[in-house]
């Protein structure tokens, strides 16, 4: 959940606060959870998403894409310069994506949600979620190839 919120907000400190807040809200609303309407993870991420969007509304701004220089350098050491270069390209392409598409990436690849869960969080159908993932990946691939 932290990874999803951090990707959405591009702010580690705010992500920690929002993650904690999401769990607080989930605790308060735990009686409203209905298993027939979806799994616990989708319900929890729905709460986290609302908390993150509230934070975005409150700030009306977002920090620059979160970067982690230490991880990047470590990646260079481990996988070589080509892979590091490609990772940088992906990171930059991800930063340029609209927030809605970046949110899809965060839910799919950072939070590890299945397509059905992702659709439930975003309030769309599973097929629409699949299409969204496919198009976002195409856009990322294109952006990466252009930068390389």
């Amino acid at each position: 959940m932290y990874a999803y919120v951090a990707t959405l907000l591009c702010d580690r400190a705010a992500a920690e606060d929002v993650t904690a807040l999401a769990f607080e809200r989930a605790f308060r609303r735990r009686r409203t959870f209905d298993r027939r309407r979806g799994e616990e993870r989708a319900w929890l991420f729905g709460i986290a998403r609302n908390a993150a969007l509230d934070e975005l509304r409150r700030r009306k701004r977002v920090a620059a894409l979160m970067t982690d220089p230490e991880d990047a350098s470590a990646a260079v050491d481990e996988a070589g310069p080509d892979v590091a270069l490609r990772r940088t390209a992906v990171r930059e392409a991800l930063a340029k994506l609209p927030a809605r598409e970046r949110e899809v990436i965060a839910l799919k690849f950072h939070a590890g949600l299945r397509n059905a869960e992702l659709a439930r969080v975003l309030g769309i159908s599973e097929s629409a979620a699949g299409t969204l993932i496919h198009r976002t990946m195409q856009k990322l691939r294109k952006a990466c190839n252009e930068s390389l």
Partner: protein
Amino acid sequence: MNPFDDNETISLEVIDATLAGEAVQPEYAELAELTLILAGQRPIPQEDFTTALDEQVARRFARPSSRTPRPVRWRWLFTPGAALGALAAVVAVIVVAGGIAGSDKSSSSAKLGPSASGSRAAASAPAVAQSSASASAPAQRQSPTAVAAPAPAPTATGRQIVQSAQLSLSTKPTNVDGVAQQVFDVIAAQNGVVRSSQVTAANNANGYAQFQLSVPSSNLGQTMAALSQLHGANVVSRTDSTRDITQQVGGVGMRLADARALHRALVRKLASATTTAEIDGLNGQIGAVEARIARLQTSLRSLHRQVNLSDISLTINAAMVPGHPVSSGGGFTLGKAAHDAGRVLVVAAGVALVALAVLVPLGIVIALALWIAHAVRQRRREQALDLV
């Protein structure tokens, strides 16, 4: 049916397989690599934050021990919805209770107890032009002195009072004829007149008799007392009415005096008339005045008759006639209990119906407002994404 095209399907399968750690075909290596890079860029929270959050979550979401008291189930009583429901129920009770009180009030005017009728009997004050007093009593437990008492007579110190009375009796189905005959006897003894009568004798609950009676007003009290004590009959209800027509009588008397004075003046004028035209004109005027005098005298006689004679409307019903039930006494019976239970159920159903009529529209409005508020809030949240 697969909602995706081939490319989408393959792409999603490759992504899922890669995330699951499975191998993919070489032609999809680029997509798999991108998937792995994206998964590898997953932000990792600080360890102290993770630890603190885990502890907090474990503490707050921990299952309550068996010794922990269960959450109070009646907390919903304090929710706004419950408050609105309670308010609606109170309104319903007030509305239904008001309706019941209103209906009881309307019937009580016709069925007051003897003591209440006594208190209403002071209808003779000159300022009061019209009044009535009613009395009813259980048919078989009737105290003779209570109902057989003379009608509350106005203190007619120079006032012209019209009195009338209504009396409803009940008797056994086989006794309607006998009671009707007693009515004739009483009226004859009181120098009264039976203006109309209708007696339907039947050996069942359809037996019925109706009388329109006139008695001298001075005998009204005695007549009512006698009628209330007829052998084999019980008083169901009794109403005594008075109407002050002093002003009306005075007005007619004054107009009559004026007409007579005018008549005398015209006669004197006729005596001194000399021309034929003058005589004819005066004769015409005198004729008109005489006709007017005749009308006024008739009116005055009618008013005097109303004052001197009192009308009595009397009905005799065989027992068990619908609408004129004969009470079986004041004791507790299963029938009365069933009746009371039915009454309680009717009131309860009325309360529930009124409460429902209040709550349903209110609930719809509240639900609609909540839905709109939720939709607006969610829309604003989604707009936050567009600002990024």
